[in-house]
């Protein structure tokens, strides 16, 4: 008898996925017992609307982590690409998503490819290289394009309307709630990434490179091409996420999302992505982001101030990390594997 999970996903669930699911269900029950209004479609719709940019960014981060690197420049890439695409569109006197979307994704891809080239040829930890590019991208854009903010009245009308677009809406006595257009976009991103990671050669090479770059290179994985794919794709997703973020918050701020990189990386790490073993699942990433969003938005319903969010999130992250790596440490001790660092 196959478990329903295996029937859907064709694999076993990972321990992290199981523990996160239990944690989220437990948390939902706890919040519902304090505040019955939590258990409703509106909560789900809100989570989709607010979590969409984070989820898209997280999928990109998952790819980078699986490839054995860490990228901290992606929020800056996201914001920079979206802001540049808006400025460029205004220069042409246009106001349409059909221009902004491809241009923002293109800018994101270019910035990502620059990351990949630097990482490949400098042969230094990806964290340090992307810290450098993050500062350069942000500084350069701020110096060249300025840092003026455009609130909802001044931002592109098509972008503002895009953020309010719903595919389904529910009418309640308190008002109308809609399921945002973001849902199919996020679902498409997740499906595409899942397909690329698990069903194509390039996806397998990402896992191979993350597990052991030397072994990967000896079985014929082209390291440079794999890096270009990983960081280029992450950049493209960032470009998309930047626009969606602007649409979601209805405000164009060229220095938004600063410091957000650590939170997204943390969400992906909670979901079981391993820096040292080419491991990570999209479902785990989804659960990690879900938990992050829940802590961000629903602690108030428990009667706790939102200042507790980092505390809880950090604690869960530590528990998740300890669980993953103590397991690996035991296995290493059994198998007499000695790792560096």
């Amino acid at each position, binding site marked *: 008898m196959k478990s329903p999970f295996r029937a859907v996903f064709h694999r076993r669930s990972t321990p992290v996925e199981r523990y996160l699911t239990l944690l989220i269900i437990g948390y939902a029950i706890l919040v519902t017992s304090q505040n019955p209004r939590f258990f409703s479609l509106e909560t789900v719709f809100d989570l989709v609307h607010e979590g969409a940019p984070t989820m898209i960014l997280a999928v990109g981060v998952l790819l980078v982590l699986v490839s054995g690197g*860490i990228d901290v420049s992606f929020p800056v890439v996201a914001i920079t690409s979206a802001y540049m695409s808006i400025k460029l569109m205004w220069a042409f006197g246009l106001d349409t998503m059909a221009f902004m979307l491809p241009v923002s994704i293109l800018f994101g891809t270019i910035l990502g490819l620059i990351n990949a080239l*630097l*990482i*490949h040829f*400098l*042969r*230094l*930890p990806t*964290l*340090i*290289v992307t*810290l*450098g*590019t*993050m*500062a*350069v*991208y*942000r*500084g*350069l854009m*701020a*110096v060249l394009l300025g*840092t003026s903010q455009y609130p909802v009245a001044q931002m592109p009308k098509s972008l503002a309307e895009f953020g309010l677009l719903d595919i389904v809406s529910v009418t309640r006595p308190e008002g109308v709630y809609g399921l945002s257009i973001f849902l199919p976009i996020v679902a498409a991103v997740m499906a595409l990434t899942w397909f690329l990671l698990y069903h194509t050669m390039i996806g397998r090479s990402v896992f191979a490179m993350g597990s052991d*770059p*030397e072994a*990967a*290179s000896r079985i014929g994985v082209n*390291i440079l091409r794999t890096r270009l794919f990983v960081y280029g794709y992450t950049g493209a997703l960032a470009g998309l996420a930047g626009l969606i973020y602007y649409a979601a918050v209805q405000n164009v701020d060229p220095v938004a999302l600063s*410091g957000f990189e*650590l*939170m997204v*990386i*943390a969400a992906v*790490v909670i979901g079981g992505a391993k*820096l*040292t073993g080419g491991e990570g699942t999209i479902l785990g990433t989804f659960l990690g982001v879900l938990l992050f969003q829940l802590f961000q938005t629903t602690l108030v319903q428990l009667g706790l*101030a939102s*200042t*507790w*969010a*980092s*505390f*809880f*999130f*950090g*604690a869960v*992250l*530590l528990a998740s*990390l*300890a669980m993953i*790596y*103590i397991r*690996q*440490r035991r296995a*290493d001790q059994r198998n007499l594997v*000695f*790792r*560096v*660092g």
Partner: protein
Amino acid sequence: MQAILDRFKGHGHVSVLAGANIVVLVLLAIGLGSSFFSMNNMQSMMTQVAEFGLLAVAMSLAMLTGGIDLSIVATAVLAGIVGAEFLTGKVVDLATTPAPVVMAMAVAAMLITGLLCGLFNGLLIAKASIPPILATLATSIFYTGVGTVMTGGASVPVKVKEFFKLGTVTVANIPMVFLITVIAFVVVGMMLRWTRTGRRIYLYGENAIALRFSGARHERLVILTYAIVGLICALAAMIMVSRTASARVGYGEAYLLQAILVVVLAGFDPFGGRGRVSGLALSLILLQLLSSAFTIMRFGPYMKVFIWGAMLLAVMLVTRIMAGFMERRERAHVAPPGSGGSPAVVEAVSA
């Protein structure tokens, strides 16, 4: 003269840094003149470099082991908040307790907090085998979370007036906080050079597995290293609180990028095992000179961000090119023709 030149042989990076310092100093003397070299500006530069210098030396210790500590700023801020809770009168009654006692308690609380934060990092890295990047990423969020919960996100003001003096008092025109940093540098430098622990930190960074097989207690070494890192962060916290007369979450976030920049600029190998405290001191001076010059020239904050990032990338590029050049020269000297293939392959993928 020859003796001085001999000393610099084999320390290419340190001499390049010293040269860069001299060039920048000369340029500043020509460009800005006496306004730059006034006693006032010198003192303010020394005060500024003090707290940042401590964070940089903390980061450099973590990097010597081949790790990294992303939680240095979070540790310092948390230590500062715990200390400020004493100085604001929340823990002890300021009216009845004499000021020196309160200050001693506050400093002790900061040092203990820093030490505990560092110990916790070390335990996660050594005993749970979590990669340093992820372990300290998690603790930086967690420590920030603890600080936010303690303060509710607000700033904790210092009410003991005597504590501000630490930030302003001078000894022979040299700010006291600068002296603290100099002493910390000398102590860390001597520890790395003359003690068994210091040599083992280098060995661990060079080849952790070899050190493990040589019978050294490698896990204890890692825990000790990160504990020292935490302690140094607490010293930085002390200076921060005395200088700003308060402690709050979110202070000094830009220091993390700058600390990594200054350590890489100083010639520390992020993969561990290479780097000298003297180089770190020189690269700190260089960065501080430039930073002050930019302030006098009225560069905006984003211009500075751009310059720091571009410098980090440029330094890495130059180091990479120089390393490639040295490798080729060594291979030409050592290896007979045709036998150099295998190391090149290994090297190409090890990044």
